[in-house]
């Protein structure tokens, strides 16, 4: 009896050892030799796998850098300049420092400025509402407020402000670009955060003629060109009845914000201006309209964010 047990144990052990040896040699023969730098680079990355770099995850980003041995056009928006410096050190290359960016919502057609003319009752996704009609305010380029951008965000950086019906971007934003792709109307743009987090942009993407645009929204860009004329740095171009401020040329002087007749140009995170002495001839321009909605409503937005988490 004991012999059978001994034979069983020994033969099983023998098979085990033989298998281990065979596997060892096979593992050696078919070993995939990977540049160990790929692992190091991957470890340095934030592991969000968000796709903001344009690649299928952090590993793919790391592989592409090491295999091509180049940092040309490669940037991790989540990690930012810090992480790119570490990556550059690992692969022994120079990295061009990219300005930190943030998502900017280029529409201020809120419930007050762009009142509802019709009611939409279909599925609550911007993609479908966009395919059916211009939208409840009538502006064919305006924000539909149904939150495809919020759905797309992996970083809880964007929420719809319930009072205005427009999305608001908070500091969690890493400029991965998911919301830009999700918006069917190209309203969201990645722009540089700016010195001291200050930015100036035209909060409108409407390309209709001025009179038509104003019928639907009181703060639309009418393409009058006053901003372009007053800009000393050639940063503003007017195309298709719409002004656009080039962030690379803009020096944040705020002259355009002052002259815009509809209040379409917004300045974010600037200190309040000193009130100018009003001349008899000029109508005083209400500068409080110029601040972006989101800046003063962070409390409301955070509440909305909490509610979203509770609902989940």
């Amino acid at each position, binding site marked *: 009896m004991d012999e059978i047990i001994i034979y069983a144990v020994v033969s099983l052990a023998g098979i085990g050892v033989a298998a281990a040896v065979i596997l060892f040699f096979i593992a050696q023969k078919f070993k995939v030799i990977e540049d160990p730098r790929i692992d190091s680079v991957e470890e340095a990355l934030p592991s969000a796998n968000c796709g903001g770099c344009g690649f299928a995850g952090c590993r793919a980003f790391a592989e592409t850098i090491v295999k091509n041995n180049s940092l040309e056009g490669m940037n991790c928006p989540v990690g930012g300049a810090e992480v790119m410096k570490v990556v550059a050190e690992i692969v022994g290359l120079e990295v061009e420092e990219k300005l930190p960016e943030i998502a900017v919502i280029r529409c201020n057609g809120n419930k007050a400025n762009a009142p509802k003319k*019709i009611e939409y*009752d*279909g*599925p609550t*996704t911007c*993609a*479908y509402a966009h*395919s*059916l*009609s*211009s939208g409840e305010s*009538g502006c*064919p380029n305006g924000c539909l407020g149904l939150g495809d951008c919020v759905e797309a965000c992996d970083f809880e950086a964007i929420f719809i402000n319930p009072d205005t019906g427009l999305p608001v971007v908070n500091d969690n934003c890493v400029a991965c670009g998911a919301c830009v792709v999700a918006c069917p109307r190209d309203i969201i743009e990645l722009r540089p955060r700016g010195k001291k987090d200050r930015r100036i942009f035209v909060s409108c993407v409407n390309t*209709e003629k001025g009179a*038509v645009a104003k019928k639907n929204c009181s703060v639309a860009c009418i393409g009058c060109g006053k901003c372009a004329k007053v800009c000393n740095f050639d940063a503003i171009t007017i195309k298709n009845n719409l002004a656009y401020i080039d962030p690379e040329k803009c020096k944040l002087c705020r002259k355009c914000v002052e002259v815009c007749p509809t209040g379409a140009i917004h300045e974010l995170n600037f200190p309040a201006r000193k009130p100018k002495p009003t001349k008899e001839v000029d109508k005083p321009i209400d500068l409080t309209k110029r601040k972006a909605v989101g800046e003063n409503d962070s409390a409301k937005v955070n509440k909305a964010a909490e509610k979203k988490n509770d609902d989940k």
Partner: protein
Amino acid sequence: MGILKTFSLGGIHPPENKISKSEVIESLPISKVVYIPLGQNLGAPAKAVVKRGDEVKVGQLIGKGEAFISANVHSSVSGKVKKIDNIVDTSGYKHPAIVIDVDGDEWLEDIDRSTDVKRDFNLDTAQIIEVIKEKGIVGLGGATFPSHVKLMVPDGKKADYLIINGVECEPYLTADHRIMLERGEEILIGISILMKGLGVEKALIGIENNKPDAIDNLSKLAKEFKGIEVHPLKVQYPQGGEKQLIKALVNREVPSGKLPIEVGCVVNNVGTALAIYEAVQKNKPLIERVVTVTGKSLKRTANLLVRIGTPAKELVEFVGGAPDDTGKVVNGGPMMGKALVSLDAPIVKGSSGILLFKEEETKRVEVTNCIRCGKCISVCPMGLEPVLMAQFSENKMFENLEKELVMDCIECGSCQYTCPAGRPLLDYIRIGKSKVGNIIRNRRK
């Protein structure tokens, strides 16, 4: 009667609500201003050939279709061109249209306005296609595909059946029903012209069995025409879908991703056949069409002969105005039509009906989770899987969506109608379909 022919897969039977079926066609009085969009067909919009201030007569060419798939646009009124501007149309967006201030009702001299029926024609195939192209005829069933392009059979393919769609399977709509009763002979002449244009010997007219008077009328008249047969079909939605109609009438299946010509068939609506009769025999371009105005809360319903470009509100006013409890005004039928954003939107070549729904009739059901019952799959007339297509579309899995053959979906709405959980299946499938369509187009480039 025997067992009625029908298509083989799926289908539903929504309430027919053909409340306007006994209303004789009336001509809607001409509006004071018309708005004629340049893009009223599938394919590229026409280019304006008139400018502000030009005087135009009824039937005059005002927009030329230049691309391969495009159609000419003609003035439906006489008067002066006020402007060429972007106006809100039935798509919910603004598109270029020619706005004309109406003055009188002067027609081009070469158009025959008499109502006597002209039987004989002696044009050859190429001439027929040319006239159809010149007169801006597009499919009046709703898809508005330029008819002359449909008749141009590609090399290597041959048509052996012309199939005429007299089904009108959408609930509420009765425009086709009325023209089959009142202009039956002209329709059959139009069909003969189409047969010559296509080079076929046989034409089959499919009519749903809920129109026995139309079936009788056309059957009687068809005896005088060689090669035209009338077939009653089972009342089942979407019997009027061209692939379903082909299966029902000739028992052939159009392969996935292909057109009916692949199985030797060309399908045209009865309204298109009538428009072709008028184009060839009366030299009349497509400038008016019959539109059903209906709804349960209206004082009366109507089947109106309307000039293209008339704002929808004139049709609604003709039947006594929109009742106070109106929730939606739909352009087209209740299954595949689209709610109007404004009653200023003009009637175009593809407008088959204006439906007014009460507020309570338009309430959307509450959306809940999929219960995996499979009813949507059992009703899909194309044999697709709506539950999976909607899921893939929602989760942006476009590769899988393409594999599900979403491009074969005819957007009939049977799935969404049937879903017990109230899921907006068709809405999601539509989004997915347009995305996949773009992906496929970009791949070809």
